């Protein structure tokens, strides 16, 4: 029997780790993900998992040791946030190009400048081109479920790429919410054993990892890696289908909420989607046709599929919780707008910057956003610059 209980997002991910029983976890503490390695260390101390924990001296070493363990032929995971991810940056690319199926619990927090410990997506969005699959959660249940699916996606022979399972710092990682935990046995069967094809500690066949590749070979390696990322789309859907058979939970590349007949839609990632759903419920009661497209998978980017799901909308608000400092909006805004253009979707769009450094977003804020969209569709409002939501005026 599944267990209905309550816990934080960090506890939920730690419970997933307990059920997966991964082999090696190097990690370095950083708020707000610190609890995850702490929980794992306690599980090890209490003999609840077989995992070897490596208390490394930095996140750069955390990713390096995770890479070494994964290349050696075992399931290797780590957890981090914010500047910790930034310190891993160089090795993120090396791990992805080495095609190592590492799984990382990322608890999203803004990158420093100024120092701030709250929810923002600038950490993972900065790493969006590092070759990692990125899957985002709205709440603790999704963080848990996504983590349980991660190894299956990463290790699939058509993928062989590292996966980042993202949840919003504090809002999801620390807030205690209701959750359904799945039974151990079916989950263990679903996750399965790891049998790598090539690995360093293969007694019958030595292996070399991390070559210097000259121009005559390097570009092909990058194309193969890009192809694997494209393949991941179908694999993510296939794994989600199998997960649904085990748990009854449905997951796709994104989720539509009141989207099918929506005239005004918002596209967003992460915990803010709960607030958006509440605002949609309130507006729908008043007869306004509003909806949400919640992005679950950002890498690979389901641009075509999202454009198809949004093509009937009159106006679309694309919400970014990460600045690009490009002067042109945020990463979701840039990529989705390009996808809409390619799909010849001509809805009015606005890219909205929200929730930076943990700035709260309320139902009323979202009602304001939907109001903007209505006015934009009616030709009564036009933004010369991408707006910041909930910015102080004094």
């Amino acid at each position: 029997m599944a267990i209905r209980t309550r816990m934080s997002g960090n506890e939920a991910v730690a419970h997933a780790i307990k059920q997966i029983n991964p082999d090696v976890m190097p990690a370095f503490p950083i708020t707000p993900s610190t609890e995850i390695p702490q929980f794992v260390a306690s599980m090890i101390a209490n003999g609840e998992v077989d995992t070897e924990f490596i208390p490394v001296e930095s996140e750069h070493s955390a990713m390096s040791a995770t890479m070494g363990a994964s290349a050696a032929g075992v399931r290797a995971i780590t957890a981090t946030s914010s500047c910790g991810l930034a310190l891993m940056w160089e090795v993120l690319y090396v791990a992805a190009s080495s095609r190592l199926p590492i799984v990382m619990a990322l608890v999203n927090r803004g990158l420093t400048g100024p120092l701030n410990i709250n929810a923002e997506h600038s950490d993972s969005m900065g790493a969006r081109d590092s070759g990692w699959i990125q899957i985002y959660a709205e709440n603790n249940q999704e963080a848990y479920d996504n983590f349980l699916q991660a190894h299956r996606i990463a290790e699939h022979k058509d993928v062989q790429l590292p996966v980042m399972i993202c949840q919003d710092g504090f809002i999801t990682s620390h807030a205690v919410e209701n959750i359904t935990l799945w039974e151990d046995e079916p989950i263990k069967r679903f996750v399965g054993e790891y049998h790598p094809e090539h690995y360093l500690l293969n007694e019958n066949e030595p292996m070399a990892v991390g070559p210097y590749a000259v121009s005559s070979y390097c570009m092909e390696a990058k194309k193969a890696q890009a192809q694997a990322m494209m393949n991941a789309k179908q694999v993510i859907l296939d794994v989600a289908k199998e997960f649904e058979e085990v748990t009854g939970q449905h997951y796709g590349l994104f989720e539509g909420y009141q989207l099918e007949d929506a005239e005004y839609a918002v596209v967003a990632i992460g915990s803010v989607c709960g607030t958006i759903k509440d605002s949609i419920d309130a507006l729908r009661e008043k007869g306004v046709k509003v909806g949400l497209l919640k992005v679950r998978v950002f890498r690979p980017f389901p641009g075509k599929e999202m454009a198809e799901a949004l093509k009937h909308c009159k106006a679309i608000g694309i919400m970014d919780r990460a600045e690009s400092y490009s002067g042109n909006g945020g990463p979701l805004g840039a990529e989705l707008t390009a996808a809409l253009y390619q799909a010849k979707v001509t809805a009015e769009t606005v890219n909205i910057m929200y929730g930076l450094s943990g700035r709260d977003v309320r139902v009323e804020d979202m009602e304001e956003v939907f109001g903007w969209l209505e006015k934009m569709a009616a030709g009564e409002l036009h933004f010369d610059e991408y707006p910041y939501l909930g910015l102080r005026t004094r």
Partner: protein
Amino acid sequence: MEQFNFREIQERPDRLAPGHRMCAGCGGTIAVRNVLKALHPGDKAVVGNATGCLEVSTYMYPYTAYEDSYIHSAFENAGATLSGVETAYHLLRKKGKLSSEYKFITFGGDGGTYDIGLQSLSGAMERGHDMVYVCYDNGAYMNTGVQRSSATPMYADTTTTPSGRQSDGKPQMRKDLTAVMAAHNIPYVGQTTFIGNMKDLYVKSERAIYTQGPAFLNVLAPCPRGWKYDTADIMEICRLAVETCYWPLFEIVDGKWILNYKPKKKLPLEDFLVKQGRFKHLFTPGNEHLLESFQKETDRRWEELLQRCEA
């Protein structure tokens, strides 16, 4: 420890196969070949590597020069990377999924070891992984074109400390990394170079590899391009590094400092320096005081080492 049998050891197949692209006369290559010869025949190993000359010249896709499994990740993380491999090994052994015994040896130049990779190395040693970190110290960032490192000797002419009308070469003294590693209180630390029939290098490599726990080996490995000498002179230069006490041969075993060789008559440092183009400016008239100060510092360090070994 096995008896040192020069012939038997030299007849062991190379684990760094010929066909790699390191320079003729490269000290780094000599270090790697000989360290790996200290692996007992039949024993398996995973070789790690920091980015540098060695990496770009020995594992150029699609060819590897290593007979053993090999991993390179980046410049500054060879210690951490191999610590992950070693931990995975213990996990697989614990679970009964692996029957062979493996040894873990990682190589870095002085750039990847003294400087950018020092934190990663320190962490791996402090955590007690059963691995050997071998630094092939050629005293500058040779792969990028002879820039100074913290291992570069005082007054050396490098591309970032060029000697000139207003410059005597590198102004600072070199870091004593062997002592820094000894301060980690790991079971084995050795300092060596190429002497005679390579016995010192072999014996220390074997000790490092077969000591349980972390071990560090610092191997002076001349670079003909950076040091500016005739490639044929490498063995003479190494001998002079030892005979002048610039690079003493010693080891620290379980905290005990042991001097492995004491020259009968200590040669003047000049004898070592004069062979190398990077110190040419020290021999122009008017620069005698530079030679004196370098000699003084070398003497001070030698005396300090003697005290540590006699304590």
